[in-house]
């Protein structure tokens, strides 16, 4: 067998379900004094699965806790069959897990599970994202008065915006704190949760709807500070600028935003 054909056969064997190799691959190999070819190949076959499954267990501990070991293993095995690893680093192995679950489970089952997957994946994304240049309170204090109305913000690279319909965060917290695991519940109203990294440490915070609306206006709709104040005046009247400043200070303190450089 040519090198390329042999490697193709080996790859097919590793990715295949059975630990038994086809005759041609088996015949192309030699075992040792007390290690036969079947056992030697099975070591590679098992190691491939074990390594990938371990990565997903470590990236999605809450999903695993919810499903239990057996169901988690069955689901991740199906994921790995459909989406074998395509990045040299196992760090990215779980990137397609949420989309896989949405494709393969009925919506009632898939939606809460996908949301929990998205939450856990958000932490992995925040963990090693670019640090960016966080806006600081000192920098804000130094802004000339005329710069405030046109101030625009961008989210820092680590910030993950999650629109939640279920109690995923409560599930995640329960596993982290090793407390009683809650049943899956649909929230009375959707909730935005932010996951980000401040310095070296990952953080998370749920936003009240009004704050989420304001932050989304600045980050997603590109509103300037003056435009935000005008937008908020409808509901907050004269108190709009004060509330906007208070939120802005919070976002800066949290380490969520940087000054928009593109305008």
């Amino acid at each position, binding site marked *: 067998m040519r090198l390329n054909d042999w490697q*193709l056969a080996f790859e097919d064997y590793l990715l295949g379900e059975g630990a038994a190799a086809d005759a041609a691959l088996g015949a192309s190999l030699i075992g040792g004094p007390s290690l036969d070819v079947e056992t030697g190949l099975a*070591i590679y076959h098992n190691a*491939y699965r074990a390594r990938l499954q371990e990565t997903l267990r470590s990236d999605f501990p809450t999903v695993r806790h919810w499903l239990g070991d057996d169901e988690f293993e069955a689901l991740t095995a199906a994921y790995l069959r459909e989406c074998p690893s395509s990045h040299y680093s196992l760090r990215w192995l779980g990137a397609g897990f949420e989309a896989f679950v949405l494709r393969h489970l009925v919506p009632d089952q898939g939606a809460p599970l996908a949301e929990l997957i998205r939450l856990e994946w958000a932490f992995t994304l925040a*963990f*090693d*994202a670019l640090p960016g240049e966080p806006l600081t309170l000192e920098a804000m204090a130094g802004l000339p008065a005329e710069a405030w109305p046109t101030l625009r913000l961008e989210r820092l690279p680590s910030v993950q915006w999650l629109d939640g319909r279920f109690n995923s965060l409560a599930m995640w917290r329960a596993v982290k704190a090793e407390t009683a695991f809650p049943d899956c519940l649909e929230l009375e109203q959707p909730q935005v949760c932010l996951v980000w*990294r401040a310095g070296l440490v990952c953080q998370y915070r749920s936003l009240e709807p009004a704050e989420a609306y304001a932050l989304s206006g600045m980050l997603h709709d590109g509103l300037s500070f003056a435009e935000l104040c005008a937008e908020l005046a409808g509901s907050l009247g004269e108190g709009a600028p004060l509330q906007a400043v208070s939120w802005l200070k919070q976002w800066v303190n949290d380490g969520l935003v940087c000054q928009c450089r593109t305008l």
Partner: protein
Amino acid sequence: MSVSRPCLGYGLGLRSHYHQEILEQSPTVDWFEIVSENYLVQGGKALYYLDAIAERYPLVMHGVSLSIGGPHALDGEYLKQLKQLAGRVNPAWISDHLCWSRGNAHQLHDLLPLPYTEESLYYVAARVRQVQDVLQQPLVLENVSSYVRAAADEFSEWEFLEALSRLSDCELLLDVNNVYVSARNHGFDPWTFIHGLPAHKIRQLHLAGHADYGDYVIDTHDHPVCDPVWALYQRTLEHLGPVATLLERDDHYPPLAELVDELDKARELGGIALARRSLCA
């Protein structure tokens, strides 16, 4: 091209498990070897600790994803990132494995053995030269543990490594534990392997533990180094003279002090072997 000495001394594999303790305790370790892929990220803790540790210790970059013998084109983006990381940490050298870890279609995330044939030899040698052209330095390649070997082999593994280093000017990372593991699994004499390598090309040694299942041995890096591997290590150093030695642990992490004690054992046994070498010279 031959490897210039003196060597770096006795080092440990840098793992995130020990990052904080290393900064707090500044253990007596001559150098650290990083797994390059763990630091090919954009920010966060890994790079913070890497920079801090690089200020205090010499580093070597050791990759697991080059797939030098794989059936795919070399990954230019990966090589670019590797070179950027080298710019950041200024490693004493850059190593990976004589293996393939990516198939025709997918990443396989294992250090798979190659058939030791003329076809493989010329294929891999050309790719080593490509990598060296990008990195602008010799690539250091490690022998892997294996559990099957190809019936089509035309060379022994050590003959292949010798020929490869000659054809491509790469250097060698001799993993003494891997030699022991493969020797047990395939039934060859580990000393024949080590003695058959070109001594002047050996840049570094690896030591690690394995799991012994009686009929066969698996390279797990989750145990201390066993006595037969220590003996083989001493004989290797007696044969080679001083070579940078690295102790690896990738699972069942003991307290850092225990790992440093094991490294001190390498230092002590290595010292004895080198003294014996001087006496016999």
